[in-house]
């Protein structure tokens, strides 16, 4: 396959209608009604490539030059799902080396990071090649370009679940996600990935002791919160761990309380790894901590606890989270009515 770098040197690529090796093809124009909705004023380049592509599909040709044509078309319109589909069938028909195709995809994926087809095509290739290991590094490169890209994260989750028994592939995944969270503690995609790695794909060897896993996850999350308390992603993960493991929220009472009140400048910290305190200078009280403490009280369920939860919700409604005043009022009504 000719690489793009070569053809870019001769400036604009010639139209297919000007290429002698395509002169045997009778093009198929785009048919339209007299009154089209939202017709696109195509560039001559795209129109030309589309005319030839329709002709190729009509004649069912699967040859080397079809790879050229589809690559050209995909670069002009990466959302052209038929071009991708036909390209893949051509690769199969020619027994074309998928390794070469993957190299081309390394370039295109970064260029069209937000196009579904790029990732879909890659899945097809890797399913065939069964070489998941180098993909991890590739994904990391993509995440450096866009650390929250939905497709990139979905692809990593697909890869890990598709090759779920590949221990080499999985070995460093927890370290990887720990680093990703370390790079940006507010990256919700990274938190979500952590939940997938720890809970979403069966029990990994070494993780059989679920109580220990739960402790590890709670400690990790509490430490992260103690660095940046006002981070909803981490609080949601904390809840997620408890919900998934069916543990009571009251396990967090000691930890949560210091985050629900203003910072005391005269506070003396006692080193407590289970309950790391808020950092100096933190913006407190923290809305998510107040919400958590209210939920702890609500879960306890008796009258006194409900009253305490109501007070906390009121402080959120009136003061700390006024955008959600109606939500907190709803929580209060709900708790009082269900008693």
């Amino acid at each position, binding site marked *: 396959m000719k690489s793009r770098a070569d053809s870019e040197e001769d400036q604009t690529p010639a139209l297919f209608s000007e290429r002698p090796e395509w002169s045997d093809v009778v093009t198929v124009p*785009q*048919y*339209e*009604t*007299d*009154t*089209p*909705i*939202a*017709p*696109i*004023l*195509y*560039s001559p380049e795209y129109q030309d490539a589309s005319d030839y592509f*329709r002709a190729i*599909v*009509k004649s069912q040709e699967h040859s080397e030059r079809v790879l050229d044509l589809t690559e050209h078309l995909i670069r002009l*319109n*990466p*959302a052209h*799902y*038929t071009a991708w589909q036909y390209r893949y069938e051509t690769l199969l028909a020619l027994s074309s080396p998928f390794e070469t195709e993957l190299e081309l995809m390394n370039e295109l994926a970064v260029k069209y990071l*937000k196009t*579904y087809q790029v990732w879909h095509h890659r899945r097809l290739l890797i399913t065939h090649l069964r070489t998941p290991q180098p993909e991890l590094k590739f994904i990391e490169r993509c995440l450096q370009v866009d650390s*929250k890209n*939905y497709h990139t*994260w*979905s692809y990593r989750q697909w890869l890990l679940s598709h090759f779920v028994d590949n221990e080499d592939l999985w070995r460093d995944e927890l370290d990887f996600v720990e680093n990703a969270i370390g790079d940006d503690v*507010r990256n*919700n*995609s990274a938190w*979500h990935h952590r*939940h997938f790695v720890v809970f979403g*794909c069966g029990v990994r060897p070494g993780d059989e002791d679920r109580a220990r896993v739960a402790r590890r996850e709670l400690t990790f999350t509490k430490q992260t919160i103690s660095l940046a308390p006002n*981070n*909803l*992603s981490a609080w*949601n993960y904390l*809840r*997620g761990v408890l919900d998934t493991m069916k543990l009571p929220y009251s396990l967090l009472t000691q930890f949560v309380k210091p985050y629900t*009140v*203003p910072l005391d400048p005269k506070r003396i910290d006692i080193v407590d790894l289970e309950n790391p305190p808020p950092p100096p200078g933190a913006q407190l*009280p923290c809305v998510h901590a*107040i919400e958590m403490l209210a939920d702890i009280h609500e879960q306890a369920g008796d009258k006194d606890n409900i009253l305490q939860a*109501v*007070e*906390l919700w009121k*402080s959120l409604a*009136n*003061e700390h989270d*006024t*955008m*959600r005043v*109606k*939500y907190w009022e*709803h929580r*209060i*009504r709900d708790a*009082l*009515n269900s008693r």
Partner: protein
Amino acid sequence: MVLIIQIKRLVADILSILRQFLWARFAKLGPPLLPSSEETSENSSSRRKMDEIQLPPFNRSGHAAHARRCMSALPRSQIELDASRLALAFYNLGILDLLGDLNDVTAPPQWQKDGWINWLWAQQTHGKYGSGFRPSPFMTLHPLESNLEYSDYDAPHLIMTYTALLALAILRDDFSKLDRSGLITFLRACQREDGSFMTTPKDGENDLRTLYCAFAISAMLDDWSGVDVERAKAFIASCRTYEGGYGQAPFCEAQGTRFQPKSEPFQCLRLITLSSAPRLLTGGTTYIAVASLYLAPSSTGSGPLTAIEKAQTVRWLVNNQTAVKDGEATLGGFAGRTGKPADSCYCFWCGAALKILKYDGLIETKPLALFLARCQFKFGGISKFEGEHPDPYHTYLSMAALSMYPPSPLLAEEKPESWKFPVLDPLLNARVETAEWAKKNISGKGQ
């Protein structure tokens, strides 16, 4: 017997009075952790100030003109829409529908509407996987009027079929040309073993969006024989995340919607201004999941979500409303994922999901309208956030959000009526009259 009922009623009344009494008491108590009555009154005065803020006019004629320009032609920078033109048609027609521009004096002439209808029907195609609509004639190998069967490369597309049916309903077509049994066959051909649906029968994207389209089509047909509802529901359940939202596929992060590509420098065709090739019908997946569950015929007496699940989803949805201070005002747009900035389309996706769950009373409408007001582009159209270029997708969804959440109290510098929209059906995502028309005429049972 009568006596027992009366006693029961009496007890219930007493309990409810007690509850109200308790409620009134709690409402008066100051917050114990931070006893700061000053701050509380400060807060209520800031709320009052917020109520007094006047909205700028909503640029109805500008947005209508933007939609009509997009209907007439798109610049070459929009080539990426070639494979989803029909969805674009739906959003543009939806804009005109919500603005009431299709039936009043400024309405397009009937010959133009007939032309649009004609183009939409020209996309209905039939073949070995049944009947449905293609995105555009971009891969058609034979003249449209030839009526030959489609090839594997020009098969109908599930998302486009859903948007085509709604677009035709907006134009009040009678659906006499609809191949209903072919459509059922097509739905069957798209469903996979795991319950999910592919965009096209042979190959294609499969995620929650396509499942929603299959459900919406079945609801409009009033015929669910084309889908295996239980397997599809199991697939939805597998997309649920620990946050209480839904991802596009099993294991995926909960989101309001799939992302739009970043705006790139665009080529301007006279007055057409669009953000660079937006992904159409990206479908906020949490909305998509909730709407699908509530569209489906229920097999059991209980609701589609447990009380705990519902509470968790509502929490996730309301947490997506952001609060950005801007002088006296607070802008309250919705974000699509935890910790992301607000984007106008999520005002619909999150708002509509809350509406379906019957928790629409929890949304602050004034900050929402203030956020959307800022997303208006000066030459018409609405963008995802202030300073971006507009597109029909964000324009339509912003208006759909406003029709569910009209700003209250409605104070505007001028033309307060410009903020008023007809009522929306949140399950099918169309104004109620259009949704009713669709159900009546697509099923063919209401005639």
